[in-house]
């Protein structure tokens, strides 16, 4: 069951990289960065999953031997990573707006004053 998650995660990352390589619209490049990020989050959260595990919140009365829960650490990592991803997207879009104002285009092939 986890295999589907891993394949999905890698597929999202690859699609994201593809968008960053092949799409010349800078907004689409930012979308690509976002996709890579979502793939990554899916990957991390899948790593911590245990089949049949419960939520990692217990009080001592409820503990029964043989119970186990999903790994909480990757979930914490994913939360952090989601926040960082949102910041990256926000910052990149802000830069896109400024670039559009200054260059009058969102085509990355024309935004190349710095080259050579």
């Amino acid at each position, binding site marked *: 069951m986890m295999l589907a998650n891993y394949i999905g995660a890698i597929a999202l990352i690859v699609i994201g990289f593809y968008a*960053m390589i092949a799409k010349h619209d800078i907004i689409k*490049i930012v979308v690509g960065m976002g996709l890579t990020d979502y793939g*990554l989050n899916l990957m991390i959260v899948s*790593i911590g999953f245990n089949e049949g595990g419960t939520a990692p919140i217990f009080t001592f009365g409820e503990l029964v031997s043989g119970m186990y829960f999903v790994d909480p*650490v990757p979930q914490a990592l994913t939360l952090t990573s989601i926040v960082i991803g949102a910041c990256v997207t926000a910052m990149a879009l802000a830069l896109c707006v400024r670039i559009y104002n200054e260059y009058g285009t969102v085509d990355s092939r024309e935004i190349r004053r710095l080259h050579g």
Partner: protein
Amino acid sequence: MTYDVYMHFPVIAIMTLFVGAFLVTLVGKRQAARNAIAGAAVLVSLTLLALLIKPVMVDGEIIMYWMGNWEPVEGYAIGIAIEVDALSLFFGLLITIAVACSAFYSFQYIKQDDARGSFFTLYLMLSGGVLGIVLSGDLFNIYVMLEVMTFAAVGLTAFRTWNPNAREAAFKYLVVGSIGSTCALLGTALVYAQCHTLNLAQISAILPGELNPTTVLAFALLFTGFGCKSFMFPFHPIAADAHGAAPSSVSVLISGVFTKTGVYGIIRVCYFLFRSMGLSSVQIMLVVIGCISMFVCVTMALNQHDFKRLLAFHSISQIGYILTSLGLCTGLGIAGGLYHAINHTLFKGLLFLTAGSVLYATGTTYLENLGGLAKKMPKTTALFLIGAFSISGIPPFNGFYSKWIIYQATFEKAAETGSIGYALVTVVCVVTSVLTLASFIKVGHSVFFGQLRPELAEAKDPPLGMRIPMWILGGLCVFTGLFPNVMLDYIIIPATGAVFNAVPYIDTAMGEGYAAAHLASTSPFVTPNYTLLGGWDPLAWLVLFVVVLAAVFLCSLAGRSNRDVNCAPDSKHAVFFGGEEAQYSHISGGDLFWGFKHTMRRYLGFVSGAHTGVTNDYVLWGVTATAVIIAYCFAFML
């Protein structure tokens, strides 16, 4: 423990910078208060780390701090650790020195900018992030700090509203840098899947041993991630853009400090986490990447017409030296690499600050628009010469000593392995050094020497507040060049020892005997051997240098009488000039070395054309590099 009080220093050093960033925002537009807070924050953090030199470097202690006192339970590290061994402290020190000098320089420098309020917020966030990376003992914490640092750096790159290229550079930096972040995080996740811990020390104990496909993939991804942050070869174009567009005091941080976190990460990944440096395939990978970086970037630098962009390419070229040297995995190699790391921070910081002074005085860094500034800015010129001599490796300045160690290390490695390849590495290193000197002759000629351009007559040296940080960096360049033994004994050798021997690092964090219980072999990779093949006496070279300088000065003085002879229109010259008046004519920097450039025109044209400036192309390079590194690791490490 007699060192109880010291254990709080690293965390306070990091916190001060972040708290400073917060307070700077609170005081808003009040300039004096803002400068006082920023200055105090960087100085406190520098002092705290300097106080750690005695216990860590001299007495060989390792400072361990568990955030919230979450100590390991039953051999599993749960909490976030801050662990400072000699290697971390080495990088921490060079970071705080550069940060402090650059902050004091910025007080004056950013008066030209319109958005001064947020400058120090971002600046202190960047410094705190960088310091957090090198002092942290937790892999995910390193990733978070990496992102904090990248955000602050992108913000500062786009900071100059009047620089038309700044937004473009920042966007490319953010997009290409995100490949590195993605790789680093994916690598971290895979390491966690293998070890179920994020503590560096515990991973170093559990992870090495049999390599399986997951660990090889994790290694390749972490290596690429940190390599991207150090701007190694296929990631270098964004560095050039970002350094050129950012304010100079920030370029110091991006070039001197930011790249070092990548180098630090590569050391931690290769020598500690995976202990894979003993494999010759990993050594070859690092050396080849280093050589390509240093050669490609130095030839790109020869082509540049912008002072700061040129310096940026040199910066990556010097990072190539460091990576090559670290890839040798010998005592001399590591020592040379680390020595070059600190020298690079010092001289490149100095050079970026002089470039900033030129920009401050003249409003341009375009080489063809400058010339003859030595007459108007003599103090800046002297500082520039110190930096240029250092980076080109002219004795007795510091660049010479570290390059000298690197040459010997590569040669020693060639003798040891009997492979001709490592001897060629020495050749590449020497050729790169020559080309570095050539391009600094070009800069010196087209900015500081030659005829003064008429429109620059108003230029003058920057104010004292900007000169003092430059003199401190210049003084440190001379000091590290003249007293290499002091540096080696107190700073470099302890740090090199820490690189080779991961056992104390693991045992301090996880308890005595943890490393012996988990590691297959606790012995270092090789016994470090620091004997140099040939010795040299820096002081004798200083005397020679002064004598030559005095001779040049005397000759120049003797010829002074006929230098400024008035070339008034004279009927006897008219036949040569057609009667026209003498005009301003400066041989531009682009015209120097034209013979060499003409011979190399195919290659130079190719590399120059390859740096198209299109974001997609740079992403393609980055993704290709990631794929190649992963494929290489799978082919040769398993």
